[in-house]
């Protein structure tokens, strides 16, 4: 067995209007962040069902980050306000069950914040890498 450092798998849900555009801007500006981050485009952060997050963990993701427009700037006016409540409740519950709180994050990244997107991803990957493999929420049957 190799003793390589664990390469984390990060699923990033990005809203189409701000954060996905922010990720594109990071690309336009050639701002590096680890390839461990895989982005799934959703119309709005409020499209992210907690079930998607649990599904990702189940399938072996080591961290899940949800990115949306800044509060007040939602393309759909209020979508990210719901996200904020939903994720606050969900994350608190995961923490209550003893799941490492560092594996989940919500970050508001605007379409103008390519640098913030890259910095956030770098930071999150570092944070999740430090935790090691996700063992507490994974479903072993889903492993390769």
């Amino acid at each position, binding site marked *: 067995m190799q003793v390589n450092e664990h390469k984390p798998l990060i699923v990033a849900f990005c809203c189409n209007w701000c954060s996905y555009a922010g990720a594109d801007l990071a690309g336009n500006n050639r701002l590096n962040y680890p390839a461990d981050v895989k982005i799934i485009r959703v119309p709005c952060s409020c499209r992210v069902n*907690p*079930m998607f997050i*649990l*599904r990702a963990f*189940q399938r072996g993701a080591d961290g899940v980050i949800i990115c949306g427009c800044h*509060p*007040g700037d939602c393309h759909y006016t*209020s979508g990210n*306000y*719901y996200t*904020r*409540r*939903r*994720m*606050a*409740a*969900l*994350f*608190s*519950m*995961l*923490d*209550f*069950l*003893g*799941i*490492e*709180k560092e594996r*989940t*994050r*919500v970050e508001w990244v605007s379409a103008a914040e390519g640098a913030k997107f890259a910095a956030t991803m770098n930071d999150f990957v570092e944070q999740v890498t430090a935790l090691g493999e996700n063992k*507490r*929420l*994974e*479903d*072993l*049957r889903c492993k390769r």
Partner: protein
Amino acid sequence: MQTITKQQLLDKADSLLANGTVTAVLGWSKGEFGYDVTPKMFTTKEDLEQNFVWNDFCGVNFSKYLVSKTDRFEGKILVFLKPCDTYSFNQLLTEHRFDREKVYAVGIPCEGMVDVSKLKAATGDGISEIKEDGDNLLVTTIYEDEPATVPCRDVLLERCINCKSKKHVAYDELLGDEGEIIDSARFDEVAQIEAMTPDERFAFWQNELSRCIRCNACRDACPACTCEKCVFDNPNSGVENKAPANSFEEKMFHIIRAYHVAGRCTDCGECSRVCPQNIPLHLLNRKFIKDINEFYGEYQAGAEVGSRAPLVDYTTDDLEPGEVFDRRDMDA
């Protein structure tokens, strides 16, 4: 030990049936043993006389049954509601789950119901007969000749020990005296778990949830779980029901279930009451309730009809998901 008597309930049922106010009565009926009381629709006086029961085991929350019992029922149904049941009753009305016009609700006082598991733990298995004797139960088992005396208050359901309200929030008519909302200690145990280290919390829940056999009793009893099609029964939902293969499964199931009822759960405690494995499922629901109260202000689901649940609401200055943890660190 209930203050209201079976006869009072029967008299009320009889008279409402007789004067045509209602055409059916949703009540408790005797099961195989003295403690396994089940819900039943009564339409005749005779049936009521023979099978209607009212005792310390009538914990079941009737509100949920109104959804399926009223939808194609012509006429009105009489339902007896304990204070905690009335919260579920309102919550279901908020969600338009049944037609209020089809129900005649009679509020009845409740002094707390008995937890069969606790009773069995006190007397041993094989209970053959239970008699009430004031504040005590006289329990005969097949293994002992002499009935054991068990004080009711020692074997109360957890939800009754931490009863949040003796006040009815909905009824057409009230039998007996109205009680008060109680400043209960129901969040204490949640707080204790919150105070543990993450590893301790994980171990705690690993231990509790690993007993789950996925019988779905919690879901089936839950008055908030009235979906036309439950996600766990839906092959397209991605979380379809299957027997648990490992510890992840239970966590996934219970997190989703608790999340689905978050903001809508009235904390009636049916989930824990019916769990055959005695998993303290109510703690998950109470965690959400406690969080919601702390994050967004006090909210009691079902306290009034038409209120907006916190998770379908927002303010522009809500706390950030990341602050959820800082907040606890600060409190600590």
